[in-house]
């Protein structure tokens, strides 16, 4: 079974189809340097940019033109190094080594240049076609950090361009520099890193023999270094007898100086880090020592022992409250608009004199289901995702992972699972995709398999409606109460996630927690502007598009089942009565269980299908008041146990169709996809069975 199926292998596939007159430019850099913003500014391409380490796993590419020349920009994964200890680093390094790029723009963060220079130096060892882009100059200025760009350029020996990509400043200079370098009118002579004497001697022993064998124009010195580090594969050098001999002499020399294995690596990395430190010292001036005082103060509060978790839950409640409150009105408008269109469609079909079943199938079946899904899903998603991205942009999400890591560690899972889990509140399919930020394949699989245990937007309406009408005193249809009820249910779902993660870690996905390194990036002013709105619409509309694609056939099936009778009863009734005995065991009834099954395409349509079945109208409809809804449910035999079991089953059942397809895509395996279906289903059935049977035995109903 394969864990990863992103198709990241093979450098040429990263670029897509390149026109012969297009010049390839690569964009490299540490995570959190605004690399994606630079990419968007240069290409105008919509790509989601988040303050989230390791976001760009899938490689984006786009085009731009400058002074009549066409450029193809490739956004490489954000990495701290090229030592290839992760897939991202491997992808970035292989692409840089491939020589496909006419220029490599390394985006760096002006507020922590020293750390960023480590990557710059590593890239400079492979190619001289490098442009250093010092981004976030505005942030640096605010923190009283000055970067001397000329000084930096003269030390590094390559062009350096300063930018504030979010404001679009310096981009023109960057385009000009790219144009200049790609057309090869400048020959840079980059800085060479000096290693300790024994390493330099060993390198000198290897360079003559390597110089006689050209490998794609890769620098001899770098190839020699790879060979010393026992990585002949990357350099592409064949280890024949001659080379082996020289290499063994070089190893011998290094061993004499106690520089074998880890020590050699240590020494090489130390030289890089110390070179970066020296460069930063001469090019960066910090006029205020406690420049990060504000960030540290905020961190102390949002991660504090007593306030950390409450602040997190409070923010969650606030986001839900705004989502629920704000979605109300636009949902109504959408419903009204869709029913107006439905009238038009109906009259269009009747005036043509088309048969009744065509109208029923197309309008009452397909159209109404799609309309329902759009009207119910679109407004909350269009509010939830911007709010979520706001927190993401601000840099708060890594703090959530930081706060919750210990719980995930105890479940033998990864702290970053907290971030993909949060994304799951918006949409589980998006949450599953977000699991890419977890490097360890085992922990990534756990995160994928358990993402569905937290409820997505599509399940909120059911949870809130049922909780409000059966468990909250008085009519709590509005205000903060539903948001709090939801937070309670979500805390429950987080516990389930942790429990199942632990279970998986001790059974089929055995293993120790992998190392956890998480950057807590500086807090940044979120970009509320054009890019944000556009990227959000992308996210929302993308998910909505897939939901509509699965809702249409579902609507058709429901309509057929509800409108075709055998032996005096509709197919829907037959199916429901067949399911009834089992459904009763787990506290539901046949119609509810059937509704969950038919709602495989989209969780939103569970309640509508249940209501449709009870009233036998054969098509989706909407009830105006919660009281009316309660009466209808009670008339059909609902008790608080039914409501509780329906809520539990909604929290724990199979993922929706879109999520299943996404899981299949991410795991490249139908077996893992099947497990992701069975796991929550078994959990839900088990929980509901316990609740239903216990309440019967205790005589609670």
């Amino acid at each position, binding site marked *: 079974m394969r864990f990863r199926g992103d198709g990241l292998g093979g450098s040429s596939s990263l670029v897509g189809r390149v026109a012969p007159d297009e010049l390839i430019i690569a964009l490299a850099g540490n995570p959190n340097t605004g690399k994606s913003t630079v990419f968007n500014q240069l290409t105008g391409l919509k790509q989601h940019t988040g303050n989230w380490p390791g976001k760009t796993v899938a490689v984006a590419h786009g085009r731009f033109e400058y002074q009549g020349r066409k450029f193809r920009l490739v956004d490489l994964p954000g990495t701290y190094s090229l030592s290839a200890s992760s897939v991202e680093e491997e992808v970035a390094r292989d692409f840089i080594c491939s020589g496909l790029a006419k220029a490599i723009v390394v985006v760096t963060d002006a507020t922590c240049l020293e750390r960023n220079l480590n990557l710059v130096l590593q890239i400079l060892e492979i190619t001289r076609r490098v442009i250093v882009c010092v981004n976030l100059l505005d942030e640096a200025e605010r923190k009283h950090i000055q970067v001397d760009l000329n000084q930096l350029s003269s030390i590094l020996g390559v062009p350096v361009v300063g930018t504030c990509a979010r404001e679009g400043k310096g981009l023109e200079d960057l385009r000009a520099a790219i144009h200049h370098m790609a057309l090869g009118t400048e020959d840079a002579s980059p800085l060479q890193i000096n290693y300790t004497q024994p390493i330099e001697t060993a390198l000198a022993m290897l360079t003559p023999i390597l110089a006689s064998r050209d490998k794609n124009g890769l620098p001899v010195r770098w190839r020699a270094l790879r060979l010393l580090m026992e990585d002949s594969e990357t350099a592409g050098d064949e280890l024949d007898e001659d080379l082996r001999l020289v290499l063994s002499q070089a190893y011998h020399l290094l061993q004499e100086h106690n520089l074998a294995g880890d020590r050699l*690596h*240590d020494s090489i990395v130390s030289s890089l880090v110390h070179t970066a430190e020296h460069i930063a010292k001469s090019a960066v001036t910090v006029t205020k020592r406690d420049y990060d005082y504000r960030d540290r103060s905020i961190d102390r509060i949002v*991660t504090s022992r007593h306030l*950390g978790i409450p602040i997190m839950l409070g923010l969650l409640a606030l986001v839900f409250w705004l989502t629920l409150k704000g979605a109300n009105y636009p949902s109504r408008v959408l419903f009204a608009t869709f029913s107006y269109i439905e009238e038009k469609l109906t009259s269009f079909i009747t005036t043509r004199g088309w048969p009744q079943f065509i109208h029923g199938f197309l309008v009452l079946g397909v159209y109404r289901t799609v309309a329902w899904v759009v009207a119910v899903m679109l407004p909350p998603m269009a509010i939830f995702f911007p709010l979520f991205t706001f927190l993401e942009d601000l840099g708060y999400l890594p703090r959530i992972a930081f706060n919750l890591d*210990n719980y995930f560690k105890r479940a033998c899972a990864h702290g970053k699972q907290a971030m993909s889990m949060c994304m799951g509140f918006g949409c589980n399919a998006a949450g599953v995709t977000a699991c890419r930020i977890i490097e360890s394949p085992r922990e990534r699989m756990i995160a994928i398999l358990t993402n569905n245990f937290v409820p997505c937007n599509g399940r909120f309406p059911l949870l809130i409606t049922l909780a409000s009408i059966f468990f909250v005193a008085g009519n709590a249809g509005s205000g903060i109460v539903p948001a709090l009820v939801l937070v309670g249910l979500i805390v429950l779902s987080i516990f389930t996630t942790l429990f199942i993660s632990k279970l998986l870690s001790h059974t089929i996905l055995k293993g120790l927690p992998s190392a956890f390194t998480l950057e807590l990036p500086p807090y940044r002013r979120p970009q509320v502007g054009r890019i944000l709105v556009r990227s959000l619409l992308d996210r929302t509309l993308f998910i909505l598009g897939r939901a509509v694609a699965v809702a249409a056939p579902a609507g058709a099936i429901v309509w057929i089942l509800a409108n075709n009778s055998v032996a005096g009863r509709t197919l829907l009734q037959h199916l429901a009565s067949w399911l009834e005995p089992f459904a009763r065991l787990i506290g539901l009834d046949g119609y509810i269980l059937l509704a969950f099954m038919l709602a495989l395409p989209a969780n939103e349509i569970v309640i509508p299908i249940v209501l449709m079945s009870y009233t036998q109208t054969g098509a989706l409809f909407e009830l105006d008041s919660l009281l009316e809804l309660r009466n209808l449910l009670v008339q059909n035999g609902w008790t608080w146990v039914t409501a509780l079991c329906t809520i539990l089953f909604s929290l724990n059942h199979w993922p929706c169709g879109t999520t299943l397809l996404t899981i299949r895509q991410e795991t490249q395996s139908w077996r893992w996809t099947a497990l992701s279906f069975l796991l929550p289903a078994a959990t839900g059935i088990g929980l509901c069975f316990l609740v239903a049977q216990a309440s019967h035995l205790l005589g609670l109903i």
Partner: protein
Amino acid sequence: MPSSGSTIPLSKLPLGQQGIVRELRSNSRARRRLLDLGLVVDTIVEAVCQSPSGDPKAYQIRGTVIALRAEEAASVIIERTES
């Protein structure tokens, strides 16, 4: 910056205190990752905050704040500095 001379694991560094990296006790992959974070010998680190449960802790390393779990930070041996 005068140093105290005695060494402790990074995980034991109290919040707000600084130390200088003296030795890495992990090997291969884990070691490389720590090195890539800039944790080479002679690097100054500061413990800046901890999660509500006390683990992981976040450290200021070469201008960036990085969270490490206790068992990983324990493999980094530092010398306390009296700053």
